[in-house]
């Protein structure tokens, strides 16, 4: 029974993991770089939502679009001023630029906000619905619902809007896209800003059940990377599959292992996928 409960919880949480991780795969798909600082934008999103709650009384779920907007703006500037300059540099330079950004954001948060742990209290935090013998935690459910909304919006954006199609064209063939009049620099900014914005959105949405502090992003790094690698770096659909899978794996491993070892399970999955099927379950190799 706890087995089924774990799977249910895992799926609900997994939806959020998907939203958090989509940005990482989007950036890789369009620009070919792994943004090692992606998880830091989760931290940013969580802090924005927390302060909105503390000073404006906004429910984190309502603050999520605000988190998105702030991260989007920061991402736009970061891409334009920093990342754009290393797109043609050797991968080692790209890796360390995003590592540098990681260091700046993490320590910047530490300086601005201090190291203490902060959390929110909402009316529905401890409430759950019962579905037969199973319980559905309301914070999880709301997070999942928000992820669905977010996912649908993203899907519409990528498929139906001009921007989305231009981004996909840039991902597949930058020179051809340029010839067709697509401003690839703009697309890169868009992809990066959108990507980090989504991660921040996810951060706000999980605030009801996760404590925020400057290092919180770091706790999600391996998780995010496992999601995108499992689904296939570059594939948005893969991030969804990966997110759900990771959610379930994590929930199931919590039945058997203490929390430290749960992370170990994730790491091992991560390494196995990279070794055995680097293109992931859904993605095609780049």
């Amino acid at each position, binding site marked *: 029974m706890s087995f089924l409960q774990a799977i249910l919880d895992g799926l609900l949480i997994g939806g959020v993991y998907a939203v958090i991780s989509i940005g990482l795969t989007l950036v890789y798909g369009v620009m070919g770089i792994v943004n090692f600082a992606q998880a830091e934008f989760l931290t940013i999103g969580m802090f924005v939502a927390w302060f909105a709650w503390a000073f404006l009384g906004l429910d984190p779920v309502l603050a999520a679009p605000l988190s998105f907007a702030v991260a989007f703006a920061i991402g736009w500037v970061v891409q334009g001023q920093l990342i754009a300059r290393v797109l043609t540099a050797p991968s080692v330079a790209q890796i360390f630029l995003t590592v540098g950004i990681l260091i700046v954001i993490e320590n910047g948060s530490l300086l601005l906000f201090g190291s203490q742990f902060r959390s929110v209290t909402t009316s529905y935090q401890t409430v759950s619905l019962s579905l037969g013998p199973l319980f559905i935690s309301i914070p999880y459910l709301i997070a999942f619902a928000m992820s669905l909304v977010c996912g649908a919006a993203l899907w519409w954006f990528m498929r139906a809007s001009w921007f989305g199609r231009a981004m996909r064209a840039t991902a597949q063939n930058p020179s051809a896209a340029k010839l067709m009049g697509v401003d690839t620099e703009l697309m890169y900014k868009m992809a990066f800003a959108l990507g980090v914005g989504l991660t921040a959105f996810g951060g706000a949405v999980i605030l009801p059940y996760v404590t925020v502090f*400057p290092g919180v992003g770091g706790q999600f790094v391996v998780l995010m*990377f496992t999601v995108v690698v499992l689904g296939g770096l570059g594939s948005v659909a893969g991030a969804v599959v990966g997110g759900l899978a990771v959610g379930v794996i994590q929930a199931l491993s919590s039945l058997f292992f203490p929390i430290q070892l749960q992370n170990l399970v994730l790491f091992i999955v991560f390494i196995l996928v*990279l070794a055995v099927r680097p293109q992931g379950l859904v993605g095609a190799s780049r």
Partner: protein
Amino acid sequence: MKRCLALAAVIVATALLPSLLDPRGYWIRVLTFTLLFAAMAQAWNIVGGLANQTSLGHAAFFGIGAYTSTVLLLKFGVSPWLGMLAGGALGGLAAFIIAIPTMRLQGHYFALATLAFGEVMRVIANVWTSLTGGPGGLSVPFVPPSFAAYSFKLLRPHAYIALAALVVVTAIFEIIRRGAMGYRLRAIKQNPAAAEVIGVDTTRVKLQAAVISGALIAMLGTLYAQVAVFFDPDTVFGIASISIRIALIAIIGGVGTAAGPILGAFFIIPLEEVMNDLLSSRAAGLSQLVFGIILIAVILWRPRGFITVFDSWRARRSRTVAS
């Protein structure tokens, strides 16, 4: 040739330094860690520079070395020198185990996989409390000073040992670079299929580089343990404190050259110390923040590191000499 002479001059000067500095002082400690990190970066350079694979997981081997010699000392009274050899063997073995599944990965993927391995080791060290002391860390026990026991009253011998280690690792790096293995690694870097067809066993060569690099870094872990006297999983298996830092040192100094890690270490470690001193007392995280900003600035200015600066100076000089 000129670069070799300059390097030799630097090494000779550095060899004199420990004798000049106050043996109980602050700066000799900084020098010791600078030399140690230079050696670590040089060991990383074998895989990161010659084999062109950016590993972000070398902390895994470093920690294995530190823990192996310290645990052997604590539980069985084994001399750290022997413990260092044992650590080196285990580090080499770990590198072998890690290299096999990551062999085919490139660039960013490889960095990710190695990062994950480093983290796996850190988690294991935190959890396996009976062996490693868990998150509480380990202290190297006090032993009456003697060379055989790797125990000294002053810091000066530690500095000299670190210097010797740097010389040894650099020599190994150069031997590889100039020898058959260097040619093979350069071939693999540029065109792996062509390398195979002309008889280069690409898998074996990459494994060799990985094992040598891992074993060397593990042995340097013992040096660290003996100087620092106390360490915990987050310190010796840390992504930021070890893995990223040594890769960074090699990159900023100039990846793939013998001088690079040395230049990088002498720039970064003292700078970090100074910044920590000046800034950390004011606010937590400020020195790291400044460091991150410097890193970004250097990458944007010179994506290949300081060596490219020296290269262009040399090029300009030789052009004027020729004319």
